[in-house]
């Protein structure tokens, strides 16, 4: 599909550009992020460049609909990328949400707001019947975001996720139309 930008009063979710590569690279050095998100480790500049570069085809092929999260500053200008969020295709009316937030942007509810914008668009514009959330067992920060959005916890699936070559247990939760809070 054709890429779209999403926004609310505070955030703009837009497509990543090559100008974002340095900040994405820096964010992905964070050990906490590397612990829970299956990004390459060590994370180099070319990994970010590749991720940005494949974004247009990911949209065109209707795979992951992916944005970087930016915030409106008090002077009206926009911040650089503070995180990323994506809706991965799973079936005709189901997608899986995935996200990370840079260490310097945590603790301000940014991820929850971005998740709300993306999920609302998924239900209202894409007509999704279910959005799924998965995380490695123990990723409490991600789970808190999901629960704030209204996701209902549905179980633990053993050895379900592949995390840099290791199999790890996965938490799964689901969000249905009308449940977004």
């Amino acid at each position, binding site marked *: 599909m054709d890429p779209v930008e999403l926004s609310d009063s505070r955030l703009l979710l837009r497509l990543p550009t090559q100008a974002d590569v340095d900040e994405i690279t820096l964010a992905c050095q964070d050990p906490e992020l590397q612990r829970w998100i299956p990004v390459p480790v060590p994370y180099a500049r070319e990994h970010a460049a590749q991720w940005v570069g494949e974004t247009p085809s990911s949209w065109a092929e209707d795979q992951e609909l992916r944005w970087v999260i930016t915030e409106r500053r008090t002077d009206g200008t926009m911040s650089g990328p503070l995180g990323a969020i994506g809706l991965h295709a799973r079936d005709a*009316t189901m997608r899986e949400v995935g996200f990370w937030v840079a260490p310097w942007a945590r603790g301000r509810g940014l991820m929850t707001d971005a998740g709300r914008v993306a999920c609302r668009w998924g239900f209202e514009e894409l007509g999704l019947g279910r959005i799924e959330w998965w995380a490695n067992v123990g990723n409490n920060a991600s789970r808190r975001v999901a629960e704030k959005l209204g996701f209902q916890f549905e*179980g633990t699936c053993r*050895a*379900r996720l592949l995390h840099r070559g290791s199999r790890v247990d996965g938490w799964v939760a*689901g969000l249905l139309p009308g449940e977004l809070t």
Partner: protein
Amino acid sequence: MRSQPVLRDATVSLGAFCDGDTAEIVSAARDPETRRWTTLRLDYTTADARQFVAFAAQSWATGAECVWAMRAPGEARWAGSMALRADHRDPQLADVGFLCAPWARGRGLTTAALRLTCAWGFRELGLARIEWRAHVGNLASRWVAERVGFVFEGTQRQRLVQRGIRRDAWVGGLLPGDLRSVDPPTALAPEVRTEGLLLGPWREQDAPQVLEIAEDPDTRAWSGSMRAMRTLDDAREWMRARRADDDRVDWAVRDADTELLVGRVGLGHFDHQARSCEIGYGVHPGHRRRGVALRAVTAATAYGFESLGLARIALFHAIGNPASCAVATATGFEFEGIERSSFDHGDGVLHDVHRHARLASDPPVIR
């Protein structure tokens, strides 16, 4: 590209489809149970079956899926289909799908076929996890998966699509160490530990206690299924029949410390559309008045609501059985009325019974 292996044991043989299978496949696709639980078209035709047979052969060439025809050993007649589908993003992950022809059900074919398929997938494809999903309420599928060793992992809401409609799904996972090499005595009674009791499958050595329950005058008076039991062989046969009944969850209730049989509890008469069933129970005469029925009914009810996703469980008892009425009330089964001439306790007379029921949405019971 991989050539299709033949997998077989004493119960089942898994191999290629042949053109002659199409008539049987069409007939199975039109079976009401197949329609209820699978995604096959309601107007499934011979052309669809031909296309499926061609797809099954081709799936081995492309490596997309591993699809076998199930047959009983030495029989040419198609008895079902078994598929193992690798996840295209995670080569160590696959899911299973299966269908048993109506005429081949109740013979353990699907369980044997699933066990062979999973063992092959771990060995030959290097899988680390195999996933099973079924629409909520598909007990026959769930028992097949649990017999093979799949561990139930939860209900994922609206996870599956059936003919354009999203449906809630049960999910289970099988890791290499979970695979069971032989049929457990039963997988229809998952072990539940509760308040000094252990609920689990019947064991051969339970026969003396089962017979003692059956010989008790109170049981004789109220239990239809145990009334005819006279010998230890009858007791063993009764347990065998219970284990073979796919449409029940039947537990032996034991003392958690001694593991001695103290009673029984079971869920049966499932109505999958209404997400309801009936609960039945009995206590060994030597273990009455110790809250065995209360604890067993509470645990079985919780399993029905939480693990099977039921909305309603009904409890019937004879009008002249105040002990049962007390258990029903104490476990939160509200009295709903009297059904007249409704139940044969095995004496050839239709008795009036009390109907009680508990809903998943009822407030918790305060003891």
